[in-house]
């Protein structure tokens, strides 16, 4: 059966096993199916426009090289989470009772995390399994938009007032975003701060 997301019938939503590589018994997981579909899209693109497909492959190879350090960092952090942090501790800092401390960790973590957003999904899934709230995952992901090293570039194009105002709004709305996503996900009693 497909590793269906949605959390119905008591099954974990998102990836909790069997969705990536082939499942035991030789069945292809959802992740592999997705990869095969992506490859199929390239075959279609190549038939339609070989130049476009080759150009895309060249972009892909550059991206793979760029993403490797971030993936290595995420792999190391996932290992550290599994090795050093007890589930109860993660739940205390990022779970139901984390309060303002949890929000600060999620916001700070989102701002400081490097590399593309999708590189961080595996670690967030791991932290969620250990007790991290969905509202804090949403806040973390939203704050990935606040990139301190890129601020000078934004200032160059749009000026420092625009950059400052936009950054302040993004920080504030990351909390609102987390609250709304958390509320919609059923964290009604957990966001009192």
């Amino acid at each position, binding site marked *: 059966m497909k590793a269906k997301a949605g959390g119905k019938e008591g099954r974990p939503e998102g990836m909790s096993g069997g969705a*990536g590589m082939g499942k035991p018994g030789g069945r292809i997981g959802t992740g592999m199916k997705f990869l095969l579909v992506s490859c199929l899209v390239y075959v279609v*693109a190549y038939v339609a426009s070989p130049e476009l497909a080759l150009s895309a*492959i060249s972009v892909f190879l550059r991206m793979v090289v760029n993403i490797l350090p971030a993936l290595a960092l995420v792999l190391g952090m996932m290992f550290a989470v599994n090795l050093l942090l007890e589930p109860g501790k993660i739940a205390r800092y990022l779970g139901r009772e984390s309060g303002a401390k949890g929000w600060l960790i999620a916001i700070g973590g989102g701002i400081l995390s490097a590399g593309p957003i999708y590189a961080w999904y595996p670690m967030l899934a791991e932290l969620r399994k250990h007790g991290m709230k969905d509202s804090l995952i949403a806040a973390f992901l939203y704050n990935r938009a606040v990139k301190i090293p890129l601020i000078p570039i934004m200032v160059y194009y749009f000026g420092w007032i625009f950059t400052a105002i936009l950054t302040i709004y993004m920080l504030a709305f990351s909390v609102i975003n987390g609250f709304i996503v958390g509320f919609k996900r059923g964290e009604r009693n957990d966001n009192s701060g």
Partner: protein
Amino acid sequence: MDSKKDSGQGGAEGRGTRQGPVKSMRKTLNAFSQMIPIIIGVLLLISLATAAVPKEFYSSVFTGNEILDSLIGAVFGSLAAGNPVTSYVIGGELLLRGISLVAIAAFILAWVTVGVVQFPAESMILGRGFAFKRNLVSFLMSIVIACLVVFSLGVLG
């Protein structure tokens, strides 16, 4: 069924203490290896989208109507993928071509907070419900924040 319960948050306390290095590494590699095909798939799609859509394309989609343009900016920012710097560069070019700041702000915000191309990966790893709600809320917020930014700039002179 509540997703929180589904995703194992409730059972964290009762799951015991730390694991040994070998078990931790095995668990990490197992979890990580499941994500690799999804990440490669998303990279392939982003690469194709990046190669297929030239930067000049974006300036041709705006209408001159500020309200409509903020929506168009948010839609195209959501569909686009890549490094945030690219969105700044495109935003800078759009500004030079007279596109409204509210549209550009919505475009940049949606680019960095909403991910249509990454949606399959987010959906498979973090759950479809979570990914859908997070992206929808982020999309709407990109328009709200863009309006607030421009309003605040107006107030500050």
